[in-house]
């Protein structure tokens, strides 16, 4: 516990509420209620919950893509005010620019920020790192979904963001590709010590990657619990420890009976 608390809090979310006007009824509907969360530097946090619990909404607020109406989100001492390159964002579906090659997609942020020339080598370094050497000149429709997500991750990380926000980036992938990308994330994190916040509805994914798992429940979306996972990386997906924790989380979502032995839970 102490080792994490020693670190600096890089992101503070205080008393954040958020509501939208329901398109059908015209009534305001609360999406997020009383969200409080602190994120430490270098930490990997998963926000876990069923669809509609407001986890993507929360991530968008952190990114500055939607304005904070109530409460405060403070990154590095400054309140979040619109998106900027301090927070990298990876969308659900690769969201690559179809008219740009792999290389140009990755270099995009550098070009917008006007620092491309001095970082040209870095682009190639990243392409190699994500295992896409030889695909530099390919257009997005010529690569697979998994490759596209790798590119999306590289495109965000190359700007050296203080926090990487991941909005279910592996949601649309098959489980083998998903595992690949999870490992890539762990690798990149180990190497760069970037703080990462992952939104997911995949319990295994959250368990495999996170230091802490933030469990959210819907209507209105709120944080019901924050679990600390202290096992060292890399974690063994099949280990008893892992399965025990998995069962534990399933119980919290009322998806498993507490007296069932882990062997029978899947």
């Amino acid at each position: 516990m102490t080792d994490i608390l020693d670190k600096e809090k890089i992101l503070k979310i205080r008393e954040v509420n958020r509501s939208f006007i329901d398109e059908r009824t015209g009534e305001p509907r609360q999406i997020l209620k009383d969200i409080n969360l602190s994120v430490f530097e270098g930490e990997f946090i998963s926000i876990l919950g069923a669809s509609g619990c407001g986890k993507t909404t929360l991530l968008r607020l952190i990114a500055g893509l939607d304005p904070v109406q109530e409460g405060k989100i403070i990154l590095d001492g400054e309140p979040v005010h619109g998106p900027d390159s301090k927070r990298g964002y990876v969308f659900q579906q690769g969201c690559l620019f179809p008219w740009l090659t792999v290389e140009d997609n990755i270099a995009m942020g550098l070009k917008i920020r006007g620092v491309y020339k001095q970082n040209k080598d870095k682009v190639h370094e990243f392409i190699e790192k994500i295992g896409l050497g030889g695909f530099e000149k390919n257009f997005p429709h010529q690569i697979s979904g998994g490759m596209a997500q790798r590119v999306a991750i590289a495109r965000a990380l190359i700007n050296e963001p203080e926090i990487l926000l991941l909005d279910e980036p592996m949601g649309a992938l098959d489980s083998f590709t998903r595992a690949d990308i999870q490992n890539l994330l762990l690798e990149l994190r180990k190497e760069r010590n970037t703080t990462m916040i992952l939104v997911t509805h995949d319990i295994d994914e959250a368990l495999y990657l996170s230091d802490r798992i933030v469990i959210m429940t819907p209507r209105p979306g709120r944080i019901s619990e924050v679990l600390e996972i202290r096992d060292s990386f890399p974690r063994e997906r099949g280990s008893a420890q892992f399965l025990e924790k998995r069962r534990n989380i399933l119980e919290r979502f009322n998806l498993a009976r507490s007296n069932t032995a882990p062997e029978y839970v899947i």
Partner: protein
Amino acid sequence: MNFVLTISGFLIAFLVNLLFPQVAENVRIKEYVFGGFRVDDNLAYRLVLLAIIAYYTVYAVVLFVHKARADKVAKFFAGAKFRFAVGLALAAWDILGTKLLFLPQPFFPGPAIIMDAFIGDTKFIWQNTLYSLRLFVAGFSVGVVTGVLTGVLIGWYPKARYWILPVLNICGVIPAVAWMPFALTLFPTSFAAATFLIAICSWFPVATMTADGVQGTPKSLFELSRTFGAGQLYQIFHIAIPHAMPQIFTGVMTAAAFGFTTLVMAEMMGQPGGLGYYINTSKVWSAYYKVFAAIVVMAVLFSAILKVVGVVQRYVLRWQKGVVR
């Protein structure tokens, strides 16, 4: 087999022209002398047929020698039946139009007589073709550029959409030549007036398609660029417009067709040159074979224009699925 089919239609047309007796008597086959060579209309027509045969032969040989990919060969041979039919049609037309004078004259001269317009009137046809081309390029490029600009405005700014879109919708359905009387008084030269008309009718489809493409851009692409700190201009020029490119080109293709129609009509209504003008003056002299000649040139010119637009399109949209190779 397909190659034989391709060639044989034109060969039949060739032989018909050469061997079929000239039955009707009052047909004037003119003769020209080019540096010692005597060329009459029939010979010129046969030379053109030979050129077509030679072209297809060379093309087939090149495909064969270079071991071209199967889809390319299949594409070439898919047109074989049609080419055969074209050859037969030419032969029938030759017989009915020139040899027997079965078709009402002078409205439907045979192919050999039409060739006469190209030989006897070469310079004038060439001048008028260039005039048409110049007029088209001027009007079309103005129309496309303003169309893209308007489309981006409409697609990006709700206010522009509110004010411009109704105007676009109203003006778009009016045939451009309807503006002709105003255009002729508003603009100093008839060239400028016609440019304006062609520009208007190309502007409309490009503007609507561009607006469509800009508005259809996924929000997430803009959001992503904003996480890198992209401003509005970047979002317009590097995201909205590239995303709209496929639609823009659909608009441009339509604009080319509209523009070409307007071009010819404008020329027929009052231009000092151009293929439309050539048709008009020829009609006055009942030189219908020249009208046909102008039609042939227009067909060739327009498909050349489409080809150029197509090449640009394939280059610009090379990132699109199915477009690259």
